[in-house]
């Protein structure tokens, strides 16, 4: 009985043999992404050659994902892992990586893609201290909400796909070129809309929309969080409301996860409209693709700041 049990355990625990890189693929490349934004871009570039799973579903606070068994299984079987980086996913990716034991997707391996590599991040702290809240050592990680972010992320995804599946290079490059064209057209739409927003004053809940604001020349008058990741205190809320009144704030930008009672109270007290914006794909209906998500984001900002709807 003991021997049978031991044999069963050994069979169950046997290491999975990785496929050789030069072997033609007979099945789709298994890709795991953190954000659904990345999953969309992988699908756009990979087409039928990829099978993509996103760990986030779309409505989450990007800093608070609860790792599930399916995440661990997906990571253990993935051929390619795509993350934003800049410590956005620091609360769960290192733990999953360690437990998944998949050598193909470890940092430095061909199957690891960090789409923020080379990105010039905003708000890089000069010194690291928790006094500044939940700071990210490499800077603001919400680069997926920069209108330039789609093209930047797509380039790194393309490179990753080619690395792990060189046989599909031609197809990946062709599909990437088509995507790049769509991204450029979309960016032109957003640029046109954003012309009317320059100098407008907004309040954000978290630092998610800082890239968007910087891109379109919006002034961030204040943040509902006194420091990143720190919940608002009554004093801070009172000061923020006073600053919004004296500074003539034009809008409050919140994400689905942060559009809460505090935001409602601030809006009521200050008389400023709230725009609930997507912070990643899938969180709001009609945002299944990155371009659609950014279109809706611009449309909703346009509704409170003025300008023509994006679509």
């Amino acid at each position, binding site marked *: 009985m003991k021997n049978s049990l031991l044999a069963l*355990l050994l069979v*169950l*625990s*046997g*290491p*999975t043999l990785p496929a050789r890189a030069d072997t033609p693929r007979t099945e789709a490349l298994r890709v795991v992404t953190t954000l659904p934004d990345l999953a969309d871009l992988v699908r756009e570039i990979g087409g039928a050659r990829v099978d993509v799973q996103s760990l986030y*579903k779309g*409505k*989450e*606070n990007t800093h*608070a*994902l*609860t*790792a*599930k*068994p*399916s995440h*661990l*299984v*997906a990571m*253990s*079987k993935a051929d390619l892992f795509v993350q934003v980086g800049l410590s956005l996913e620091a609360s769960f990716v*290192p*733990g*999953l990586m*360690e*437990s998944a*034991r998949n050598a193909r997707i470890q940092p430095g391996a061909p199957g690891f893609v960090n789409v923020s590599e080379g990105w010039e991040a905003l708000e890089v702290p000069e010194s690291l201290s*928790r006094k500044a*809240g*939940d700071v990210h050592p490499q800077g603001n990680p919400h680069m997926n909400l920069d209108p330039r972010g789609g093209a930047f992320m797509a380039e790194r995804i393309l490179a990753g796909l080619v690395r792990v599946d060189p046989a599909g290079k031609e197809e990946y490059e062709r599909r990437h070129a088509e995507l790049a064209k769509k991204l450029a057209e979309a960016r032109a739409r957003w640029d046109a809309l954003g012309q009317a927003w320059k100098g407008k004053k907004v309040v954000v809940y978290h630092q998610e929309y800082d890239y968007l604001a910087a891109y379109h020349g919006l002034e961030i008058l204040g943040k509902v969080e006194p420091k990143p*990741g*720190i*919940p608002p205190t009554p004093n801070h809320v009172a000061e923020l409301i006073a600053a919004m009144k004296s500074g003539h704030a034009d809008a409050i930008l919140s994400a*689905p*996860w942060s559009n809460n009672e505090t935001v409602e109270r601030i809006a009521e007290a200050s008389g400023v409209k709230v725009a609930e914006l997507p912070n990643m794909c899938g969180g709001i209906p009609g945002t299944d693709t990155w371009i659609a998500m950014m279109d809706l984001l611009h449309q909703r900002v346009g509704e409170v700041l003025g300008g023509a709807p994006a679509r």
Partner: protein
Amino acid sequence: MRLSLSAAALCAAGAAPFAQGSPFQTPGMPSQAPPPQADAESGQSDRFSSSFNPAISFIADIVFDYLDPADSAADDGFDAELRGLELSANAWVDPKAWAYFVGAADEEELSIEEAAVHFTGLGGNHVVRAGRFFIDFGKQMQIHPHELRTLERPLVLRAYLGEEVKGDGAQWDCWTSVGEETVVRWSVGVFADLLPEEAAFPAVDQTGEEITPEVAERKDAGDLNYTARLTGFRDVGEHGVLQLGGSLRSIPDFTFVDDTNGLAADGLDSEVWGLDLTYGWTSDTGLERWTLGGELLAETGDSGVTVDDPDTTPGSGDETLSVLDDALFGWFAYGDYAWSRFDSAGLQLSMAELADGADTDASEVEAYYTHLFSEFHRLRLAVTSTDLDTGDEDLRVALQYTATVGAHGHGISF
């Protein structure tokens, strides 16, 4: 003499002032060593290089409480205590192994809680851990007290296993997937000694002195102490995770030692079996969570001891030890609700049959509210009622403040 000359030579050479040092050296003050040569100058990284420092953290766990004990002779009232100060360091020691150290100081002593290496070089999902570490039993024994959802570990765990159980030994663990949404993991550990350092309900002699369980320092292979755990967890819909697990802690050979009467009962064994079930639900935003869980425990083997003393005179020579070998049962169950990243509350119930020879049952109810100021410090209010069916009841109201300084990352907890 040589040292004095060296110090004088350094002063004469006009050594550069140290960053945190005194701007000048006054007579009678200790002289400081010269700074290590910079890497850039030596062309080598020397043994004083800080480039490979481990991730270091300190954790302070402070409890301010009010106790109304059942025993009228016991002290009641308010107290404040630095319950623990933990220092931990983690670092990779080679491409396949990482090591960590956790030291803990309370008001009386400095102890090594854990010091172990995780070796991952066997391939697949195997891990071998060796050194001193907390046992893999259920879901609450692997973690340190400051990491608990509650102020203390559930009563039944304290009663059957101990406040905390760390062993010196080795453990092999592995996991595999079943389908796309289920993970099964198992572990087997072998240790020198898994007796608790502090028993919540220790056996006592007729004078109230503790009768201590002891394990021989050197033993046959068959008398080593063992743990085993098998657990499976899977996604339940979009929002839920369900986990079921079974655990065993086995001490095949130990001795009860009664110092007061000069008695010992040897050749004893103790096994604790656990069956745990946990369900977690997380909202779309990831900020609202429900967790419901519990564990059934059974202690078998020689669970307790009493002293028979016909003449009621300690040490008179007529005393004998009666070992209790009845199976004991207990359980705990809890429900937690977090309505934001920063606030959660819960209720935990626990019950255990005690090995005191009088068939006493103990139960405990703890209500708790936890507020995180940030990821790195939190405040908890806990109200605990511990009740023996003899009618004795302790009431404790506690404020617990826990702060982490430095890195304190955790892997995936099974």
